[in-house]
């Protein structure tokens, strides 16, 4: 018996279907989003005006500073700012 007969190969190829694309994209962006989060939190701690702006309107304050909102986990940021 050939260990690489067609049926066996077909089963092995089929054993690894793609993960949902949204999961993959989120995992690909996560470390960079977290680095940005660290940066924002550090700035908020050091800069009272920036901190006030974040609390007044988080999304607007970030937009004004040039952050890409789509790539940021905003809920996590709100949680960290609230700590």
């Amino acid at each position, binding site marked *: 018996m050939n260990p690489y007969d067609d049926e066996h*190969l077909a089963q092995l190829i089929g054993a690894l*279907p793609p993960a*949902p694309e949204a999961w993959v994209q989120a*995992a690909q962006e996560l470390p960079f989003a977290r680095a940005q989060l660290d940066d924002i939190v550090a700035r908020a701690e050091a800069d009272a005006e920036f901190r006030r702006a974040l609390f007044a309107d988080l999304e607007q304050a970030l937009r004004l500073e040039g952050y890409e909102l789509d790539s940021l986990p905003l809920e996590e940021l709100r949680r960290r700012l609230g700590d």
Partner: protein
Amino acid sequence: MEIASLPDARLVARCRTGDQDAWRELVRRFSRYVYAISSQAFRLRREDAEDVFQEVFARTYQHLDRLRDDEAIRPWIGQLTRRLCIDRLRAGGREELTDVEPSSVGADETIERLDEALAVHEAMAALPEHCQEILDRFFARDESYQTIGGELGIASGTIASRISRCLAKLRELLEGRNPGREPSSGR
């Protein structure tokens, strides 16, 4: 060398320098494996599988500096995924807490099969692109001849023979890598 062709150890080394493209490739390279372990070996619910998926890659990124051996990223990710799946099952209370790891019975055998599948997918990367595409679409994405024909612009009547030729090429590659390999049992 293209980033997708880099061996695991060099890819890890590039990730460690903060190379975003390398990190994206690392996630892409292991995404199917991590997904399959949680969904096939441990049969996690979709939302749990997604949490495990994100946690695996978050921890992988955090631990890049502490890996003892860059070559070992593959088993390291496999073990991490296995452990997080077991933690998830325990936390969900869907398994009785005993000294025996929940749901590991049968899971290890499935993971062994997934390891073999990962090696086959890795070998596929050395095939011509049209072969990679057609084999993946037909066997892994479960697409019909009609869909594949439409997407790739080829007559659906020729797809079966193309698949057969591509499987033959894949077999040659695998036999070249593992001469004299013993047949695996019962699959």
